[in-house]
Every structure is written in structure tokens, then in C-alpha cells.
């Protein structure tokens, strides 16, 4: 029991490395917020473009979405971080992690929002167009507000799943929660910093998971 406590809850180690892990928390939060905002915005914009059904554009969007949904994000991260310098492009590990996870979230968000747009009945388009609204006006004022209600639960779940992947930044040296914790763990030869990291993740993501559950029940009921 003592060995267990000493390994996972070593008071001295916890005290020494708590500040650096707290710094990691801010990096993780900043990354997550940036990724969620730009990923969902980008994905929604692509889904809207796809609604115009311009053949070539739609094909390109589908290819992008399928590739970024198929590849493991870690592969993309390593490829970009270790590959781009060879052709003279130097990006910080923070930037690489942000870019890749944004592109991955945007790919998923595009598919989810597109599914939401196509789930809005054809009659809604017809009613709106019959009163003189144009295609874009119909998309903005009639279709998207209904699509958003449909896609909020799956989109939230996906956003949580992707932001948790900020932990992948560790392999390229991003000083996020896990990055800080593994550094501390190797200096102290003790698992307590990792335990602290786990606790930090729970505090960060549990409220989001509960929030998404609330959203699901809130939007599951037929819209009133």
C-alpha cells in the first residue's frame, strides 16, 4: 500500500511538479479552444459549400474529409512535424498539433454538418424558395438553424474526442498536460506527475462530457 502511494501519490513529487503541470493545463486548454473553434467553423463552412452541389468542389471536399478521417492523427502529426523541415518549412510543435487536429476535426465536422443539412426535409427548401428567398438565404435562415439542432450532440462528442488528442502533442514535445507530466515523470522517476495529469484531464473533460450528455437530452426532444 505504501509502495502504491509512494508511486502514484508521492507528496513531494506532486508538490514539485504541480506548477509545471498547471502550465500544461493552460496549453491544453488554449489548444483545445483554438481547435474546437477553427475545426467546427472550417467543417461547417465546407459542409455549406458542399450544399451548392458544385461537382468538382464536392468531390474535393469528400476526398479531404475521407482522408483526414481515415488516417490516425498521430501519423499526420509525425509526418508533418518531422517531414516539413526537410523541405525548409519549420513549424513549432504547438502549431503542428493545432493544424493537424483542426484539420481532423474539420473533416469530421464537415461530414456531421453535411448529414444535418441533408436531414432537413426538401419541403423546407421548397417553402422558403417559393416565398422568394434565394439559395443562400434559405441555407442561412431556414436550413442551417434546423441542421444545427440535429448535429449539436454528435458534434460535441466529436469535438471532445479530438481535443483529448492534444495529448498526442507529447511525442513532438508540446508542453501540454501530458508533455509536462512525462517530463516530470522522467526527472523524478515517479508516476505521480502522470497521476496528476490524469486528474487534470478528468477535471477538464468531465464537465464537457456531462455538458454533451445534457445537450443530447435537450436536443433529442422534437423541437419546440
Amino acid at each position, binding site marked *: 500500500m505504501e509502495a502504491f502511494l509512494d508511486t502514484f501519490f508521492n507528496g513531494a513529487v506532486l508538490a514539485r511538479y504541480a506548477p509545471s503541470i498547471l502550465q500544461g493545463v493552460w496549453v491544453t486548454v488554449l489548444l483545445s479552444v483554438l481547435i474546437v473553434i477553427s475545426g467546427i467553423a472550417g467543417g461547417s463552412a465546407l459542409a455549406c459549400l458542399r450544399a451548392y452541389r458544385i461537382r468538382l468542389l464536392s468531390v474535393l471536399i469528400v476526398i479531404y474529409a475521407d482522408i483526414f478521417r481515415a488516417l490516425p492523427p498521430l501519423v499526420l502529426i509525425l509526418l508533418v512535424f518531422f517531414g516539413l523541415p526537410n523541405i525548409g518549412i519549420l513549424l513549432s510543435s504547438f502549431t503542428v498539433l493545432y493544424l493537424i487536429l483542426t484539420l481532423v476535426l474539420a473533416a469530421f465536422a464537415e461530414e456531421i454538418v453535411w448529414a444535418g443539412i441533408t436531414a432537413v*426535409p426538401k*419541403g*423546407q427548401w*421548397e*417553402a*422558403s*424558395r*417559393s*416565398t*422568394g*428567398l*434565394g439559395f443562400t*438565404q434559405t441555407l442561412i*435562415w*431556414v436550413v442551417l*438553424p*434546423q441542421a444545427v*439542432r440535429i448535429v449539436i450532440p454528435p458534434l460535441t462528442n466529436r469535438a471532445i474526442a479530438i481535443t483529448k488528442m492534444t495529448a498526442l502533442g507529447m511525442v513532438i514535445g508540446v508542453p501540454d498536460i501530458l508533455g509536462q507530466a512525462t517530463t516530470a515523470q522522467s526527472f523524478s522517476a515517479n508516476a505521480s506527475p502522470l497521476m496528476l495529469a490524469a486528474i487534470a484531464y478528468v477535471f477538464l473533460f468531465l464537465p464537457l462530457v456531462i455538458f454533451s450528455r445534457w445537450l443530447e437530452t435537450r436536443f433529442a426532444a*422534437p*423541437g*419546440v
Partner: protein
Amino acid sequence: MTQAAQGAVAPPTLTVRGLRKSFGAEEVLKGIDLTIARSELVFVLGPSGSGKSTMLRCCNRLEEPDAGEITLEGDPVTGPKVDLNRLRLRMGMVFQAFNLYPHLSALSNVTLALRKVRRLPRAKAEALGLAALDRVGLKAKAGSYPAQLSGGQQQRVAIARALALEPSVMLFDEPTSALDPELVGDVLAVMQDMKAQGMTMLVVSHEMKFARDAADRVIFMDAGRIVEEGSPEQIFEAPQHERTETFLARFSGRG
């Protein structure tokens, strides 16, 4: 003829010439000609698949005609340089499934096009919207959402949504087919009232009694063509074509 004299002064509200439409290999409309005078209520009958809904939907180009010319008060509806959205403000449409916007209140359903297409300020749009809801007897439900309204009420809001734009013609696509029988009367009463106020109306429906009471002219369509047309008395009492007779017999037998 009064109609010819009128035509010299003002063009008919709606004309359709040589309208054709195919879905894939199937030709649904095989050349439709139709003229609707101002304030006329024209009722279209026909078996399902006869092309009557497609014909109606071609009038405001929700379905794109393959061939033919359509005019609204003399202005071309078909053709390359048509500002379709402007024209659609002048052609109200009412759908079988109501198609109200579920995320908007009854009033917002009615004011959306007033605000976004006619670009009226909110106060003005809401005043017109409330007046339109009042015409269909639902001013009190302005703040209700579609899910809180009965089918009949939803359809009347949908009528108000079209009416608020003060269209030159109203197109009705089986407006009562999705309603419980006891709710049909309210919708028909609103349509009767519109007729009394001089609205020009093209109605695709199976409400025979309404056709007898309110229609100026009844058109019978079958297999993509107009088989015959005439006054309600002519069509219902003395149909000239066997197909019309068979159709009406089947209907009266059902009723």
C-alpha cells in the same frame, strides 16, 4: 367576350403555354395550356400521377419545365433573364405538408420573406405578418411554434405566410390532403374568404364539394394532359369525356 376585352387592358394573371415536363423517361406533362383570369378560382382534378401537382409546381418553377412558356401578369416566368426570386414574391404557394419552419414562431414564419426578401424593417414586417395571421384567424397564435399548432392551424399559418407577400396568384397543392377531416373545414373557409376578397387561385385538390361551391372553372387532368375543362356544373353534372366520368364516379362512390 369580357375576357378578351380584359386581356386588351390587362394581361391574364397566369398563362401556361405548351408546358412539358419529364422525369427520366416518363413524360409527366405532355403539353399543358392554361389561362387564368384575375380573381378566378381554377380547380384542378385528376387521378394521382396525372401530373396536376407537377403542373402547379412548374408555375413557380419549383420544378423546372422542359418546354413551354409561363407568364405572370404578362411578365415571363420562364426564360433566361428572369429574376425568379422577385417573381416568386408574386406567387404564393401552399403545400400538402404545410412545410412551416419548425424553429420559428408562427409570426416569424410569416415575416421571414418580408424581412429577408422584401427587406422591410422588423416593425413593419411584424405588422403585416399579424395582419396576415388575422386574416386566417390565428392572430392569437402568433407566438406559437408549429409543433404547438394543430394541422389545420399549421396550414392556415402557411397560407398566411404566402398571403403576407400580397401575391397576384395563390397556388394550392392539395392543401387539405394531410389534414384530419374535422380540420379541413377551417382551411377551406379561409380559402373561401380569400376567393371572396378577389384572390386569383389555382387549386389542386380532391375536395369536390369545395370545387362545386367555390370554383369558377374546373379542369380535369389525366396522363399529363388537360382532358376537359368547364364550369363546376358542366364537369360534375355533364362530363364530356369518359375518363372524367369514371374518375368522378369512383370519387362519389368513395364519398
